[in-house]
């Protein structure tokens, strides 16, 4: 990694042991993926409820010129746009470059940032960032340096985390300082103003809509790849490019779920803990491994569904697909917004169904489908119970931090609703697991390595489960 680059500085600030800083995991991105991803995150600016500050790094002026017409529209919806690039002919002359709220930073040839691809967007209601560095020729292993532009490889990460975007913007502004001190001062003031506005407003742009756009653009890129003629220069490698796109579609969901975790100060580790507990219950039930993997992924993504509000939101007929009084309509259930976003990715069809039915009850009195007993998908039953148990456990840990019987107390809360809300045989399996905890059993709880979540997707996640929403 290039010393002095923004990615390098950010990683240094997040080395293990730095207080309050989570170590960063980097992933691999083809240029093909980055183009689609950045276009999606940029186009969200056009629908943003507030005006963002946008700082970008384009490597070379010529790459910016390919996007300059689009950037005129983006600038019209932004407070300020900053373009960092090594200058090429026409770089400064383009009409977008002449706009009042667009500033160019002509990077020196030896500036490490000229090897980086950045997009930082910070608004009171929207935050997103792509932070990458290109591989050097010597870093390509046996497969060699790519011959096609779209196959160029980058490494880094992307995120919706506002605090990380702000931290990185501070580094970028410090980098701009020697090039243009007055601009740096102006950017600092604008960024602080946005941070204040962010703290004061509860409203955020709908992340589901943003993620749906990311999925849409990545999928469009897949269609484009698959439609290429067989003799295309990309042909032998399109599988890798396609895999990279799918991987980032999954990443979009994992990053969305991650934000829910981070916003929940009382229970910030719910996704990882629920996934580990669900996997353990699945093992006790001797489920096949593909189902364990699918259960694990559904656990990691369960926070996409707004469960906390589900009791009030899901009164029958409030937002069903069909009018309740239409006797000709097929039976259906209300749509769960988080699960609907998942449905935009056919590879996750089964996960969407599992999450849709998390709030069913064993007795048949639950929503959204009034399903009863074994008609509720098994994984929905397992996850529903485990989510309740994990939430109870998090509460007990707060209230009785020193009690050795925390797990027993959380189990007792679940047992109260056995046969009514929960499947009795699953409560029995949970009791078995809890007795294990009492005897010293520990479950390995690992936060997912978001950049490499693909290993779980390949596990019948695209199956069509029994589902009344179809």
């Amino acid at each position: 990694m290039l010393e002095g680059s923004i990615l390098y500085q950010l990683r240094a600030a997040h080395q293990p042991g730095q207080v309050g800083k989570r170590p960063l995991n980097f992933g691999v991105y083809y240029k093909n993926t980055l183009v689609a991803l950045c276009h999606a995150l940029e186009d969200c600016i056009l629908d943003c409820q507030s005006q963002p500050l946008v700082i970008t790094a384009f490597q070379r002026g010529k790459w910016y010129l390919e996007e300059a017409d689009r950037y005129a529209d983006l600038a019209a919806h932004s407070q300020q746009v900053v373009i960092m690039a090594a200058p090429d002919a026409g770089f400064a002359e383009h009409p977008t470059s002449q706009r009042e709220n667009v500033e160019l930073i002509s990077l020196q040839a030896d500036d490490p940032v000229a090897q980086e691809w950045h997009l930082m967007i910070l608004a009171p209601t929207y935050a997103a960032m792509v932070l990458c560095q290109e591989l050097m020729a010597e870093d390509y292993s046996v497969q060699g340096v790519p011959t096609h532009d779209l196959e160029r490889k980058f490494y880094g990460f992307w995120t919706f985390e506002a605090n990380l975007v702000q931290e990185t913007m501070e580094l970028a502004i410090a980098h701009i300082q020697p090039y243009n001190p007055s601009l740096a001062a102006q950017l600092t003031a604008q960024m602080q103003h946005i941070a204040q506005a962010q703290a004061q407003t509860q409203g955020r742009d709908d992340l589901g809509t943003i993620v749906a756009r990311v999925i849409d653009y990545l999928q469009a890129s897949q269609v484009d790849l698959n439609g290429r003629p067989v003799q295309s220069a990309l042909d032998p490698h399109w599988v890798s490019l396609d895999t990279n796109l799918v991987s980032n579609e999954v990443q979009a969901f994992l990053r969305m779920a991650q934000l829910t975790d981070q916003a929940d100060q009382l229970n910030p580790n719910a996704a990882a803990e629920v996934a580990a507990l669900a996997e353990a219950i699945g093992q006790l039930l001797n489920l096949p491994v593909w189902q364990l993997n699918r259960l694990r992924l559904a656990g990691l993504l369960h926070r996409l569904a707004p469960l906390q509000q589900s009791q009030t939101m899901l009164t029958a007929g409030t937002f069903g697909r069909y009018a309740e009084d239409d006797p000709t309509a097929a039976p259906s259930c209300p749509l769960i917004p988080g699960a609907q976003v998942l449905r935009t990715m056919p590879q996750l069809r089964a996960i969407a169904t599992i999450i849709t039915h998390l709030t069913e009850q064993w007795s048949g009195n639950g929503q959204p489908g009034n399903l009863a007993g074994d008609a509720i998908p098994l994984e929905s039953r397992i996850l529903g119970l485990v989510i309740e148990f994990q939430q109870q456990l998090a509460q007990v840990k707060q209230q009785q931090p020193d009690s050795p019987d925390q797990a027993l107390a959380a189990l007792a809360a679940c047992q109260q609703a056995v046969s009514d809300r929960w499947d009795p045989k699953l409560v029995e399996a949970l009791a078995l697991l809890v007795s294990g905890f009492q005897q010293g059993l520990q479950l390995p709880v690992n936060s997912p390595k978001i950049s490499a979540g693909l290993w779980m997707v390949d596990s019948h996640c695209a199956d069509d489960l029994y589902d009344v929403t179809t």
Partner: protein
Amino acid sequence: MTDAILPTHKLLPGADLEEADLAGQNLQGVNLAGARLMGANLSRSILIGALLEGANLISCQLIAADVRANLMGANLMQADLTEADLRGANLRGANLMRSHLHRTFLAGAFLSGANLMGVNLQGADLRGTDLRGANLSGANLQGANLMQADLQGAIVTEANLEEANLQGANLAGANLAGANLLCAELEQSNLDGANLAGACLVGTVKA
């Protein structure tokens, strides 16, 4: 021998079952040590606890079979192990060259000294596997989960470990020359005495 029906627990060491159709059979605990099963169809069969030590399973079909069995020193060259369950299986010294390992479940398997040259284990769950001294030269382990795996002294030359999760893995004395470790997760992994000549470590904590 075709259309064979094998009662469980029957002792059939050294049996000649070449090309046999044993698909979907319950072969739990069967003793087939040293048996010749070349080209046999064992897809969806249940081989939990079976003894297949030194068996010849070349070009066998074991699709979606439950093979949590003893396969020590077995020859599984070109075998189709798609979606087979080999969790915790004993595959010490087994030959898995050219075998199909798509969606094969190998978590916790004992693969020390096994030959896995050039196999495709992209995105595989290999948590806690014992791969000591195994030959993974040229294997595709991109995005594989190798948390807590033991690769001590393994041959991993020119393997693709891009974005692989090697958290807590033991790579002491492993030969990783020319391996691609781009963005691999190497936190708490042990690389003491590992050969990293020509390996790409960009995007890792070790770079």
